[in-house]
């Protein structure tokens, strides 16, 4: 178990073409918290996660991962503890078979083949695609690729999970499997998603991003049931709360 507090201190990010994606965000995520990041398209959710993973470098402010500020030197250390899944699983699967893809992470950290094998099979089993382990990624369906990309981060046994639209393209059963899987993950979870029902199921806290800034930050139950707030931010009530 880790005791990392993730802190975004006055973070701003402007894309090279001048588009200000994130503007002066202050956010503090405690260890073990489950935070849902929601917002309209283009609000800045993915950018925020990419800043955390060190893929983007903030133009202002700093991010602390536990006691470690995120900079070039600390990135390898932080990346070992952060499991990040992309919006597009295709970007994350690049080996010859699913087994190799899931084994990639643990192998890079020097684990012996036996441990790697155990971790890979466990991760594949948890996402329900154990039988696809010898299949090349380009032969999988979208949802199977999504499950595989989640397995790739689970095999690294990270302390923090950051997921960008994890339930995209999943069939209802796989989606439910994902929700149950994430419920078992007791470390910090940061989930950017349009799937408000998933966020309601998994996250106690919700942060709404609007135009690169935090519009609301509070309990999921309070925010996701307030139609006015949601409407303000180009969102709707979660489907399970809407009348047919």
């Amino acid at each position, binding site marked *: 178990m880790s005791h990392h507090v993730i802190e975004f201190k006055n973070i701003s990010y402007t894309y090279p073409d001048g588009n200000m994606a994130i503007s002066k965000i202050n956010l503090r995520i405690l260890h073990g918290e489950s935070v849902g990041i929601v917002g309209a398209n283009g609000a800045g959710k993915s950018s925020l996660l990419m800043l955390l*993973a060190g*893929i983007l470098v903030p133009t202002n402010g700093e991010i602390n991962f536990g006691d470690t500020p995120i900079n070039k030197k600390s990135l390898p250390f932080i990346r*070992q503890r952060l499991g990040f899944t992309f919006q597009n699983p295709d970007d994350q699967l690049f080996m*010859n078979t699913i087994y190799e893809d899931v084994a990639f992470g643990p*192998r*890079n950290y020097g684990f*012996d083949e036996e441990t790697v094998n155990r971790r890979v099979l466990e991760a594949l089993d948890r996402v329900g695609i154990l039988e696809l382990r010898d299949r*090349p990624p380009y032969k999988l369906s979208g949802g199977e690729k999504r499950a595989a990309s989640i397995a790739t981060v689970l095999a690294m046994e990270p302390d923090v999970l950051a997921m960008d639209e994890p339930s995209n393209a999943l069939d209802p059963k796989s989606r439910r499997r994902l929700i149950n899987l994430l419920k078992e993950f007791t470390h910090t979870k940061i989930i950017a998603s349009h799937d408000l029902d998933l966020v309601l199921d998994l996250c106690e806290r919700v942060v709404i991003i609007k135009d690169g800034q935090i519009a609301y930050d509070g309990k999921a139950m309070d925010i996701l049931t307030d139609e006015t707030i949601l409407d303000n931010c180009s969102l709707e009530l979660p489907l399970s709360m809407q009348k047919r």
Partner: protein
Amino acid sequence: MADIINSVYKMRYMDEISLSQSPIHKLHPITKILVTLVYLIVVVSLGKYDFLSLLPLVLYPIVIFSLSDTPYGAILKRALYVSPLIIGVGIFNPIFDTQLVTLFDNIKLSLGWISFFVLVLKSFLCVMGALLLLATTGIEKVASGLWQLKVPKIFVMQLTLTYRYIMVLAEEAARLFTAYSLRAPGHKGVHLKVYGSLAGQLLLRTFSKAERVYIAMKLRGFDGEYPNTKNLSLKINDLIYIFLWCSFLIFARYVNLPIFIGNIFTSIF
């Protein structure tokens, strides 16, 4: 859509056949890399008119093909891709080198043509050697083998990332072309006016996709090294393989085998 799928499957074919389990596939990557290297050096180092010494070296690809069950067609087709380049370069030999030599008492052939054939055969054999290495080992294992042989990791990374980029490029091109065809019925190939923008888009899209894949690799700890393979050692099969091939190749390099075998036969009879 069938076009994209066909192209992707064709391209990834080499990756797939590298996953088989023949005796050759099971050898340590270092073994195969070393033997391929010796093979390439021997082939390249033969004299430019030394056609006879080159012939026994055709044995290497034939043996590897049969032992590893690699399909001939796939590899031969890919080897032929370099032929325009080789022919384009080598065709100057017969033009400039017109010295004649007599074969079999009454056939006159210019040395230029002999050196041309030698060049073509040498290139063909070298490309086959490299393709067979890939087909029996796979790019990832070749990279880890090279890294274990202390090749600087920057070169190994260049190799693997270039290989991956080719895949990204070709797949994206197929996708762009399909999207184009769906809205340009009846056009054969791409209209010249649109060519520039499609090519530009292709470059930009593949750059950004390649970057994303690279980031995905970095996020999972990739830094050009293969620490997990440090302790894998060569087995007795590997050592026998290296010894047998290196002996044969070095012998074939210094002893003109066809003449040697011919002499044995003529001395017996």
